[in-house]
């Protein structure tokens, strides 16, 4: 059963405050029936080193991606995965992870593809929880398996494919990678490995808004007024806009998707998970280089 929302005043001004919980709210409710805590990290072993008591692990690569095709798992495998983690269809799922919740937001977004309704992010993620000295454990979590129904994945609302992006050109696009990746100076995030895109640069007309702009120093989301200044005033997004966000493989743009969809309340936001590793290697798609968005291809 869904659990009460976090009424903390710092969330009240966001469009959907029920999508966030504070570390304090979560610690008070650990173990509550109907609440499942999910850790999703970049480092595949980090959960094993220590996790929030009772949390289960879901890995973006080994659990959520199809092992053969570049795609997400299907409804049957999703049902199997969630059943094995003891997650029921009407449970409240709170996600947290490393790197300011990149992968937590990514997992949350995948859960939304399957229509899991009550998904929330732990504001500040794993680092904030630890910085505040809250409990961590290496004890294995034992949850009774659940019976999660087989639900068909719906990619039509919050996911964009390459062809969708081609058709979308002329509408708002947000490139959430680093300025160096956007300009084409480099192909991967600073200090990140080469991921095999053959060309560098960005999708023409995309605005550069690195994901990290949405986050304060302690890893929590910035207040609404600051987010409005970044995404509306600077990047020029307007109510009613149809927006696509992308990065390298779709993880950082899940984070921005969360901000646009749930904190700012844009109602048509899609994450292009193929992102630069697809676009930068595709044949005959337009690319712009340099610091300017570039011209709309004719």
């Amino acid at each position, binding site marked *: 059963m869904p659990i009460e929302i976090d009424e903390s005043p710092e969330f009240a001004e966001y469009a959907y405050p029920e999508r966030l919980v504070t570390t304090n709210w979560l610690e008070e409710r650990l173990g509550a029936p109907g609440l499942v805590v999910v850790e999703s990290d970049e*480092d595949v*072993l*980090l959960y*094993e*080193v220590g996790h929030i008591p009772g949390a289960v692990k879901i890995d973006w*690569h080994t659990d959520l991606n199809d092992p053969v095709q570049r795609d997400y798992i299907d409804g049957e495998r999703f049902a199997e995965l969630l059943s094995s983690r003891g997650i029921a269809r009407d449970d409240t799922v709170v996600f947290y992870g*490393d790197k300011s919740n990149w992968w937590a937001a990514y997992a949350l977004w995948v859960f939304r593809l399957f229509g899991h309704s009550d998904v929330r992010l732990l504001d500040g993620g794993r680092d904030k929880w630890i910085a505040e000295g809250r409990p961590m454990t290496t004890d294995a979590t034992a949850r009774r398996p659940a019976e999660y129904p087989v639900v068909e994945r719906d990619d039509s609302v919050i996911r964009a494919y390459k062809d969708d992006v081609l058709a979308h050109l002329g509408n708002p696009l947000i490139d959430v990678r680093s300025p160096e990746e956007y300009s084409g100076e480099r192909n991967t995030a600073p200090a990140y*490995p*080469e991921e095999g895109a053959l060309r560098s640069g960005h999708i023409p007309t995309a605005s550069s808004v690195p994901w990290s702009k949405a986050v304060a120093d302690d890893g929590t989301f910035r207040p609404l007024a600051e987010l409005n200044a970044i995404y509306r005033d600077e990047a020029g997004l307007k109510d009613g806009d149809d927006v696509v966000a992308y990065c390298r493989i779709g993880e950082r743009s899940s984070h921005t998707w969360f901000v646009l969809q749930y904190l700012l309340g844009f109602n048509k936001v899609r994450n292009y998970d193929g992102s630069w590793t697809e676009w930068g290697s595709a044949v005959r798609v337009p690319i712009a280089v340099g610091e300017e968005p570039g011209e709309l291809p004719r």
Partner: protein
Amino acid sequence: MTEILPAQLAEIRDEFLAVDEKSRLQLLLEFSMELPDLPSRYAEHPDLLERVVECQSPIFIFVEVADDGVHLHATAPREAPTTRGFASILAQAVDGLSVEEVLAIPSDFPQMLGLGRAVSPLRLNGMNGMLQRAKRQLAERAAA
């Protein structure tokens, strides 16, 4: 698999390949916990350490050539267990080998451990970076 690997590398490879994928991750975790702290003589000389930029987490390595062979030292944060595991595997793999033996380690040794699916090829890239940098440090010193 017909490569001739020095015995201690073959042993590590076989240890990984003998178990299923889930246990390989567990084994990697055990390696990560075995990574020794940097000897104090290097901890005081950060200038000797080389950043492995292929890794997603800050890791620094230094390759030492002593009378008893090569030693690889590494430092990486506790919050980066996968990276620590990779460093620990390489440290144990090269320890005590001759410079020539380390230079002859096949560059795709990280791909021989059966971790591609469990860890992702992207994450494995970090270990390639470490191995290549270790070999380059040794080659430069051998040429000097």
